């Protein structure tokens, strides 16, 4: 065959794949990229420098949000019902298999874009970054979010690595945003060193996996794994795979701030501004959980349909390995996060450990989902839906928590828990808002955090009842239940300080009142925490839609 024609066909195919198939599903990311360019260009033109970069970023993100919503609508046909068949048509591989576009991609992108809108509004209210730093800050934030969108849709191990790096590198710079503060620089350095180490280990793991399986494309890897299983592990292959898998897990665990790769988290949260903490705690976590779902399901399952039944069965060993790893990490992360939160006196540090603990609960849901895969499609979908629902409520809970910390810092000049003493006397509204958020983080009804926990626990329980990885799932249930009880202490301690304790004698300024712009922001974030706890059918329908990706 003529090599020129061959090349031409290849080019044509690529062009078609890129322009016709991939780019229409890539509009939210393109919007983010265009906004970044715009933000940078605006700095070069003196007149445009007067435009507040926050609003440029907000505009770009709103476009991105619109396209993300449009993507959901395009997938929706028949998706609100539980019929799975209609949705699977929605799965497409973009850019030659590097990315996957399906309901999970669409859901997480919508979540991230929606979060960014709220986040930018929050930063405008809280005043960090100032005008000078604005362009840098929003460029970094949008860049990291771009990486997170890629994390949520990665379908290829190279893309996994690229996306993780793309999300991480801007985050390192964000952590050091408070330039004058030593703690902030230290946080950035620690984060960067940790991140670099984790990335290196992960890359090594990727190369091991790719070397054994001959590909980095996740679905192809799963098929190779299934074929390998038939003649289980000749020579050192099994060992190489296991080590490779664990090394990839290191990278993922770093992004999830899972124990024992969590050490950066409290220091970064405490050193960086609360705004950055909010971004890392919500967006980064959502993307990391989505990536975990992608990798776990990518390696542990093949596509649906009768032709894959045998492959699904022979992947059982792989799934067992994945579930074991995730469950172990989940139990450790949850327990250690909750126990370490006890001794904290700084609110941001406490929230950092709370974030770690919640990563544990989320991973329990992922473990249950993988355990159920191949047993019961409907239950698997529910388990993924539980995780997605959790992420949806987590946006409001944690953004509200960090918003309160940041806004109280602006008025009280302190982020120590002790400085909140007796706030109920002067600012009952703020204390109630904080109470709602913290109680929701404990997971008590009728708040959103309870529903999330309920859904995750019910998925784990369903796995127990269906006999999927029963001992592990039982352990997870016990650990999760016990952790709910022990987490009560430290969340309530904050409330106790705010309500029971007398105000410090040297307090000069009062906190902001509820009837003000910051107060309105807090209210806007807290109202969904309550309403999603009572009327959660709507968000759950969305989450189930996202869960369709797994079945």
């Amino acid at each position, binding site marked *: 065959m003529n090599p020129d024609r061959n090349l031409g066909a290849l080019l044509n195919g690529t062009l078609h794949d890129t322009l016709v198939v991939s780019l229409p599903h890539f509009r939210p990311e393109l919007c983010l990229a265009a906004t970044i360019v715009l933000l940078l260009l605006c700095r070069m033109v003196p007149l445009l420098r007067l435009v507040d970069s926050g609003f440029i970023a907000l505009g770009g993100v709103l476009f991105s949000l619109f396209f993300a919503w449009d993507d959901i609508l395009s997938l929706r046909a028949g998706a609100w019902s539980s019929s799975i068949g209609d949705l699977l048509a929605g799965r497409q591989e973009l850019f030659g298999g590097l990315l996957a576009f399906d309901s999970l991609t669409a859901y997480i992108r919508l979540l991230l874009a929606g979060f960014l809108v709220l986040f930018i509004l929050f930063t405008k209210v809280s005043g960090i970054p100032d005008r000078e730093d604005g362009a840098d800050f929003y460029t970094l934030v949008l860049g990291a979010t771009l990486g997170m969108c890629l994390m949520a849709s990665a379908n290829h191990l190279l893309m996994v690595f690229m996306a993780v790096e793309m999300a991480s590198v801007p985050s390192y710079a964000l952590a050091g945003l408070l330039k004058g503060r030593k703690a902030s620089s230290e946080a950035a350095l620690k984060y960067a060193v940790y991140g670099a180490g984790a990335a290196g280990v992960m890359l090594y793991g990727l190369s091991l996996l790719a070397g054994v399986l001959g590909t980095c494309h996740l679905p192809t890897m799963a098929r190779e794994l299934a074929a390998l299983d038939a003649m289980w592990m000749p020579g050192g292959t099994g060992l190489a795979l296991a080590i490779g898998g664990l090394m990839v897990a290191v990278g993922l665990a770093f992004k999830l701030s899972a124990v024992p790769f969590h050490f950066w988290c409290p220091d970064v949260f405490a050193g960086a501004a609360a705004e950055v903490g909010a971004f890392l705690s919500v967006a980064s976590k959502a993307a990391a959980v989505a990536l975990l779902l992608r990798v776990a399901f990518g390696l542990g399952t093949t596509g649906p349909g009768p032709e894959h039944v045998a492959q699904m069965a022979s992947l059982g060993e792989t799934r067992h390995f994945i579930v074991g790893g995730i469950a172990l990490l989940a139990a450790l992360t949850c327990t250690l996060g909750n126990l370490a939160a006890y001794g904290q006196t700084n609110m941001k540090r406490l929230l950092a450990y709370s974030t770690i603990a919640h990563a544990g609960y989320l991973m329990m849901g992922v473990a249950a989902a993988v355990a159920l895969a191949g047993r019961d499609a*409907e239950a698997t979908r529910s388990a993924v839906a539980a995780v997605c629902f959790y992420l949806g409520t987590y946006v409001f809970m944690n953004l509200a928590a960090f918003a309160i910390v940041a806004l109280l810092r602006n008025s009280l000049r302190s982020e120590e828990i002790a400085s909140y003493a007796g706030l*109920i006397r002067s600012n*009952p509204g703020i204390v*109630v808002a904080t109470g709602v958020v913290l*109680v929701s983080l404990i997971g*008590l*009804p*009728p708040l959103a955090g*309870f529903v999330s926990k*309920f859904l995750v*626990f*019910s998925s784990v*329980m*369903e796995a127990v*009842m269906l006999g999927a990885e029963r001992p592990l799932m*039982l352990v997870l*249930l016990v650990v999760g*239940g*016990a952790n*709910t*009880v022990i987490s*009560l*202490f430290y969340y*309530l301690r904050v409330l*106790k300080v705010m*309500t*029971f304790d007398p105000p410090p004698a040297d307090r000069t300024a009062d906190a902001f009142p509820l009837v003000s712009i910051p107060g309105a922001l807090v209210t806007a974030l807290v109202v969904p925490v309550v309403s999603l706890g009572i*009327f*959660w*059918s709507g968000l*759950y*329908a969305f989450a*189930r839609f996202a869960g369709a990706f797994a079945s």
Partner: protein
Amino acid sequence: MGIAPILAVTQPAFWPLTLILFLPAIVAGILALPLIPRGKDDSIRWVGLATTIVVFVLSLWMAVPAIFGTGSAGQFTVGEAGMQAVVDQPWIPAFNINYLLGVDGISMPLVLLTTFLSVLAAAASWPIEKHVRPYWILFLLLETGMIGVFVSLDFFLFYVFWEVMLLPMYFLIGIWGGPRREYAAIKFFLYTLAGSVLMLLAILMLYFASDVGTLSDEQLIASHVVSPVLEGAERTAALTAIHSAHDAGKPVHTFNILALAAIGQSQNSPFAATSFWGMTLESWAFLLLLIGFVIKVPVVPVHTWLPDAHVEAPTPISMILAGVLLKLGGYGIIRICYPICPGAGLSFAWLVCGLGVVSMVYGAFAALAQKDFKRMVAYSSVSHMGYVMLGLGVWSAVDGHGYQWDAWAQGVNGAMFQMLAHGISSAGMFFMVGVLYDRVHHRNLEEFGGIFNRMPLYASLAVAIFFAGLGLPGMCGFIGEVLVTLSSWNYSRLLAVCSAFTVILTAAYILWAIQRVYLGAEYKGPHGDHLTPMTRRELAIAVPLVVLAVVFGVAPQLIFNYVTPTVNRQVETLAEWTRGHDGASAPAGAAASTDPEKAEFQAAIDSFSVGGGR
């Protein structure tokens, strides 16, 4: 759920029950708005009190049609055993969670007790000067939570209300309590939350094991899985959907307590399948639920939160705690544990009874040893709630007794009566202690004495209430204790002897307390000059309690008219279930002998009425 479907509700009980349930919470929300300016504390108090009164009147309208004229739709029919005034609206269709409310002979009196005690506790809250507005907001939220537990028939909803109570209670103890309030508040919260988490696991376990497709059409309609409102084709479609899902191997799970009970009592119940470590699923569920409930009751050895919480809580909150919150545990056992997990109930009967007797005896001895007046009353609650456990637990309708259920029914009726009576007497006792504490600011039993001379009216009322707690014949405390003790004789002589022996201990600690506090020559403790007579507000709280303590003592059928039909039906059903469970054929004479025995039991109940006419 939009507005339109709510307005189109055709269930007659929707608005009455919903109002009883949510009016306190709505008013709490309104109080949170800055409508009443700062400093107008009395207005807030009046709004709060008025709310509790309205809710009480509403519940009275529902529960006692005789007062308001019978016949209105949505009212309660006394003497009917089944679930009444059922409200059924979809809430979370994805999990088959419904806004499912209803009352029967077990829950209606408890709802009435709750709304009644809330009025009295609201009146007793007048002396609270600190942070008046938040106090009343939390108080009203607490009322919604308590009523919600009693009227919920959906397990998810039940759990939500169960948890909703915790936070208000935590703050009510933690902010307005005594010196060790923070410790007591967190201890209360922690104990209950630990129990609730176990309960949640049991709920999920039962949910995933349940399949409403195994029920018959009649059962599906009776348990409101398929709304009885549906007619004709709609009903058929709903039933067919469930059965075809079942036949296709896709179980339809449920949180519906009535449906779970029907499933649990069915032949080949899925709950009876062996699950973990050789125990059946229902055994695990029963144990997990039981732990959750007995923490609330509370039962030795998980009772230690109670003395602390009671002692540190302000007087009105102690009244609510003792009068209502403890009943939630007993209610949970009778409504959920036994009907849903009958197999486990049968095999763990000794455990429930044993726990009851142990806390009965331990609580009495501990009460004897107390120096703090309020702590003594708190331990008396532990002891008295032990009777409830014993009465609920005497599963005497077994093979050896020819599946005779009347003795057991006597026990459960006694337990229900004991719950209501204890609600009156313990709230009264805590209030009486509070009256004294408000004046002299101490509770040391050793430093009292001679109160009779200083406050004769108060002392007479207090002694009357304490006698009710003691279980003096003619007072409300007697009926429950004696029924429980009698019924346990049939089950185990040893337990009956222990519980009879406890009556002596009870008499000992109460009489001794009366002697140390009210009798004696003169009051020598601190603040003697503050021993002023009771105010009218205090009288308005104390007198109804004393009157009710006497009325229920002489006319117990006022309560039994409500309780007995439902309890008897439940016990009879479970006794029948036991017979089927054992697989034994019915002894020929057993069925015939049931009726005379029932009549005899009714006669026994009636014989307690001295003056009250039927």
